[in-house]
């Protein structure tokens, strides 16, 4: 299990599905998309519940996100406008940062989950490290990005039936019509988003 890369210009985690799940997913793109989304959903739901993920070496430990928010932030118009609570730390104001976590690439058995948008990357870096990007200003460290092996095992168990049926379908007849339609649409949305 590799730890996420948290740099100013790169926030991502690479997951080797063959290594973690013990199954070869080459060609089964629909299942990989689905698993990747489950990983993203896990990071988002954990963070929204006030729990983060602190990596020491390659292994991550679930931690409570440091609470409460600062007096200055809690007194800001933005904070009040979006109905936030001082003691409920969930790294969510508009929700843009967490929602910007997406699949960066899927190649063979390797999934890369990360943040592409520049502004959201800056925010995520500041939260994860406790350092503002271009200043010496410090803020509480609230690491949230990435999944550990325990969370991956839970996802693996959740998807066990899907993995079996997908691999069977792959061997027998390839993609279902629904999968093909969904994957085509995802390609279109990704292409639109880049243009």
């Amino acid at each position, binding site marked *: 299990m590799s730890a996420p890369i948290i740099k100013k210009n790169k926030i991502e985690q690479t997951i080797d599905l063959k290594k973690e799940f013990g199954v070869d997913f080459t060609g089964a793109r629909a299942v990989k998309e689905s698993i990747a989304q489950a990983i993203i959903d896990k990071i988002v739901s954990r963070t929204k519940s006030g729990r983060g993920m602190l990596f020491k070496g390659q292994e991550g430990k679930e931690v409570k996100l440091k609470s409460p928010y600062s007096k200055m932030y809690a007194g800001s118009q933005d904070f009040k406008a979006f109905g936030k609570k001082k003691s409920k730390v969930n790294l969510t104001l508009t*929700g843009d940062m967490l929602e910007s976590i997406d699949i960066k690439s899927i190649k063979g058995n390797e999934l890369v989950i990360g943040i592409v948008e520049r502004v959201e990357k800056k925010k995520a870096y500041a939260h994860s490290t406790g350092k503002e990007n271009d200043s010496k200003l410090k803020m509480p460290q609230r690491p949230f990005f990435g999944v550990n092996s325990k969370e991956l095992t839970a996802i693996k168990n959740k998807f066990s039936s899907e993995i079996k049926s997908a691999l069977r379908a792959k061997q027998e007849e390839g993609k279902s019509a629904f999968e093909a339609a969904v994957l085509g649409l995802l390609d279109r949305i990704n292409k639109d988003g880049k243009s």
Partner: protein
Amino acid sequence: MAKVNFKFDSRSAANKVLKSFGKVKKSRQLNKEVAEFIIGRVAGEARRGKPLNDSRKFPKLKDSSVAIRDALKKSGLDKTHPAFTPPFSNVTITGQLVDALTFIFRFGALEIFVKKSPRKPYKFKVGKNKEKTPSNYDLDQELRSRGFKFFTGSGVKKSVQIRKRVNTIVKKALRRAIGVSQKLDKL
């Protein structure tokens, strides 16, 4: 009733795919998720003073209005919204108007509008005004005529962040639907 319509192509296409494969429930969830996100963002942006209208601004409040808002706050008679600050223009005192924002899906498009819901009258009175309290819809119309538009269709459509987020919601719903489809197909 004045409504503002939005049509997001990617969302419509996703709905067509989900519906054509009998995933109707999933398609309704997608509509709801998109609508709730847009409403939440419209409300939040209005309250932070950056409304999703064409200018992304509210007119400045008159000195007399600020004085009344100040007196209302000091009186403590009415429960005000946390985002209410007397001199700050954000169509928010008690929060009832922005909270009355709602949505409906009609002919494949999302319509966002302010409900004709009744407003709780203020306990704080100015002068001897005994007029009936307007509905949220009527108040919105009156404020719009004075330039306080807390959202417009074109303002929402122009928002790059909203477009990005709607695309993300659609992508994520589709990816989740693949997992669900396999579970359903297996039964």
